[in-house]
């Protein structure tokens, strides 16, 4: 198990390098942009040159990247071009919000998606058709539009949930929970559709298996056979799908945070992009890549815990 984690971490390092370098390289393709953003378009050529020298922008891109990387490894992600705030501080203050969204969504997706999948694999028939329909819709309905529809129904028409923002947990736990409901539904719809189908198919597959027959013949209850044995076996493919979904969920938070005006990493990323605030964009990319790596690690660990074969290897 420990070997597995170490190996995964080692594999993750190139990913981090590649993403950060690509980001950096892309940004550096437009040499004037940072200086322009700092001084504005009205500066003299000499002023631009001075500013570029000051920022080290006249050096080759690899050298620049090395400097940037050196700073990043010391926890310094630079400062925002818009308000001179430290990028690391800006990101850290918003990280919790995004992580809250992600964790809440994962919990909802696992419970609802796996639950419905199990039920339909056992019941079949009508339930299957409903699930097919739901999974079509879940994949076809864009999360930002679903968010708006939810707002117009549950916030504008019925006033059940707040339309915008995220109430702080410390000020009102109930309000916090309520303000999470709509964004989490918007985020969870598509992953639920996938997990549901995957669970159903995996369960049906496992339930056809030879060992299920042995267990039935040995006199175990149907409940234990489905919920303990079949589900644990079926969870392997579901967990690996969950890993892929989590990566796309990060993209989802970017959009949904904007729909609900939630102050997380995603909404910061979008405002930084429209303001061409490149240090912030770079910082967000690094943070998201780190989240992806951690998520993949969790998925691998879960996989290892569930499958004895992986654990031994």
């Amino acid at each position, binding site marked *: 198990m420990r070997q597995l984690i170490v190996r995964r971490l080692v594999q993750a390092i190139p990913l981090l390098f590649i993403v950060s370098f690509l980001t950096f390289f892309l940004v550096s393709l437009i040499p004037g*942009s940072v200086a322009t953003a700092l001084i504005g378009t009205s500066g003299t050529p000499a002023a631009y040159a001075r500013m570029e020298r000051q920022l080290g922008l006249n050096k080759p891109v690899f050298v620049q990247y090395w400097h940037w990387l050196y700073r990043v490894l010391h926890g310094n992600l630079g400062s925002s071009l818009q308000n001179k705030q430290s990028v690391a501080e800006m990101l850290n203050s918003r990280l919790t919000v995004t992580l809250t969204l992600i964790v809440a969504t994962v919990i909802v997706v696992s419970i609802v998606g796996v639950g419905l999948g199990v039920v339909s694999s056992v019941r079949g028939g009508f339930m299957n058709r409903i699930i097919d329909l739901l999974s079509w819709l879940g994949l076809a309905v864009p999360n930002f539009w679903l968010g*708006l529809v939810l707002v117009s129904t549950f916030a504008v028409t019925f006033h059940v949930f707040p339309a915008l923002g995220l109430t702080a947990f410390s000020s009102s736990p109930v309000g916090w929970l309520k303000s999470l409901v709509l964004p989490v539904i918007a985020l969870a719809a598509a992953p639920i559709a996938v997990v549901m189908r995957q669970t159903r198919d995996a369960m049906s597959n496992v339930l056809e298996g030879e060992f299920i027959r042995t267990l039935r013949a040995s006199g175990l209850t149907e409940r234990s056979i489905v919920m303990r044995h079949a589900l644990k076996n079926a969870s392997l493919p579901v967990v690996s799908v969950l890993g892929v979904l989590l990566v796309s969920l990060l993209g989802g938070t970017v959009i949904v945070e904007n729909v609900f005006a939630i102050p997380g990493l995603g909404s910061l990323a979008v405002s930084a992009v429209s303001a061409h605030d490149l240090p912030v964009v770079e910082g967000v990319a690094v943070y998201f890549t780190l989240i992806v790596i951690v998520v993949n690690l969790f998925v691998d660990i879960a996989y290892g815990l569930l499958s004895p074969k992986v654990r031994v290897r």
Partner: protein
Amino acid sequence: MRRDLFWRPPSTSSGIVRKFLSRPLACVALAYLSILVIACTFAPLIAPYNPESEDLLAVLSGPSRLHLLGTDELGRDVLSRLLFGGQITLLNSLEAVLAFMIIGVPLGLFAGYRGGRIDRVIMSATDIVQSLPVIIVLLVVAAVFSGSLALMITLGLVSSPSIIRVVRVATLSVKTELYVRAAEVVGLTRFQVLRRHILPQVVAPMAVQVSVFAAAAITIEAALGYLNLDVSPPAPSWGSMIAEAGTVIFRQPFLIIPSGLIIVITVIALGVLGDAIRDIWAKKDDRSDIDTGREKRRSSQPAVAVTPSVQDENSSDPAPPDSLLSVRNLEVMINSREGDLRIVDHVSFDLKAGETLGVVGESGCGKSIMALALLGLLPSGGRITGGSVEFRGQQLVGMSNKERSKLRGRHIGLVSQEPMVALDPVFTVGSQIKEVLQTLHGSNAKEAKRDALELLGRVRLPDPRTAFESFPHELSGGMSQRACIAIALAGSPDLLIADEPTTALDVTVQAEILDLLLSLNDELKMSILLVTHDWGVIADCCERTAVMYAGQLVELAAVNEIFNTPLHPYTEGLLASNPYLSERGLLPSIKGVVPSPWEWPEGCRFAPRCPYATEDCTLAQIALRVMSTGRVTRCLHSERVGTAASNVQ
């Protein structure tokens, strides 16, 4: 039927069109998409208004005669904006799809066709790209480049791993086909081979992947539009229209409907199209059954099987008083592509307490299915359609699943054919036995563990403690089978059904397992129903044996009687083809093969393979006859069995 060396799958484009037309939903999806593309292309001609002309007198009007889908907050006509916005959204998505294909298809072909190091490099690159969060990459690109082209190319690029994988796998599978090898030998260049022979086979999986991605591209494009990254206002795109509608959601909730629905419908249409392509492709691959004309047979025959069956003389005998299990006229049907098939046909027998009864026959004679039917554990599609199974006077047929599950383990146990897949792979052997013990006896964890170790010892596992802690994949076949037997013994059943318990094992291990079963039979007075195709197993273990052929019981007698004087030609043939009993030389076998359930002859089912068959054998089903000696056989000419030269080859 030898497949020609240079045989190449024919292209049947007309067949594909026909199959496509037979799917109404796919036709609707295609029609919708065509109309959408045409309408958006000719938007300048058919749109009722200029998409950017404002009418401040008709702001947020909602649907009306003048504005079919209403107006937005600047009084612009929503329908016209949808049509013009579609140009942006669809064109952008098309750019992404083209990038997706141009990047992905050659790389996939290349990786699959060349293999080796190139393959590994490409695949590890796709691994990395696949773990990039798409939207974040797009945001970085959007921060650097203006305009949507770079965004769309990037979207195609970061999504390309999916098509690279699919094309690679498809290429790998055709690459080894003989006709591709032949083309290489003939001297076609790599490029020619790829273009002429491999590409056509890769098209279908590719098309599925492209339609899936096209659907995703439209949603992502719309998301970018929602973030105002795909087009600069006042020009519309579907995503930016949703964003604008979102800002006035309190004043005109309807406004988010048209732009959202058109995205949803378009995405669903693409999905339906992709599914249709996949299904048609899957059917096309299945061409073997069209060639053999099986499809024809299916339609010309009634849904229910087929061969007439016959009531046997002994079938209404009452169960003898000392019988543990008493089976009468058991009939099992399986629902298959050929319709309902009768797999087990009016089988009747008795099993006494403590007795070992063998059931012997070639593969496909229905013996395993018969055994599983007794437990109520038929594979899906199978069901008991007639007869009775009495276990200690209790009727099992028609019993609810719940009642039956109370019998399993406690009274009837099962040891199955493939020990390596018969245990749950994700639990240790010990925890599985423990769970069974706790369920059956309600014992606590400590008692269960003690009993489990004792059971593992009783099945003569050399090191019960290690076996207890092991996962099934850590055990050998013989050890797994012992563990399976231990589980079956956990409830100390009166009857053990052993379905070919030694078939998958090494010869030396076979003997040990049989020895174990025999000693259990002896010590525990446990009856065993032993399904096998091995006469050696029958000779070693059984008191009586039933011979099954094509779903019917053809002979049932004490083992020594069967060996000395078989009364059915099939039994005789089986015995003669036994490698242990036959003389040296080639391994003999009965001529012909067991007919499939949909090919059973009208008369005696063995007649086509039988050296004694006469005309009367083929007239009608043969009933089981009770001879003057008390023995039974399903043969009209049992007196002559043993006189023919040989029906084995």
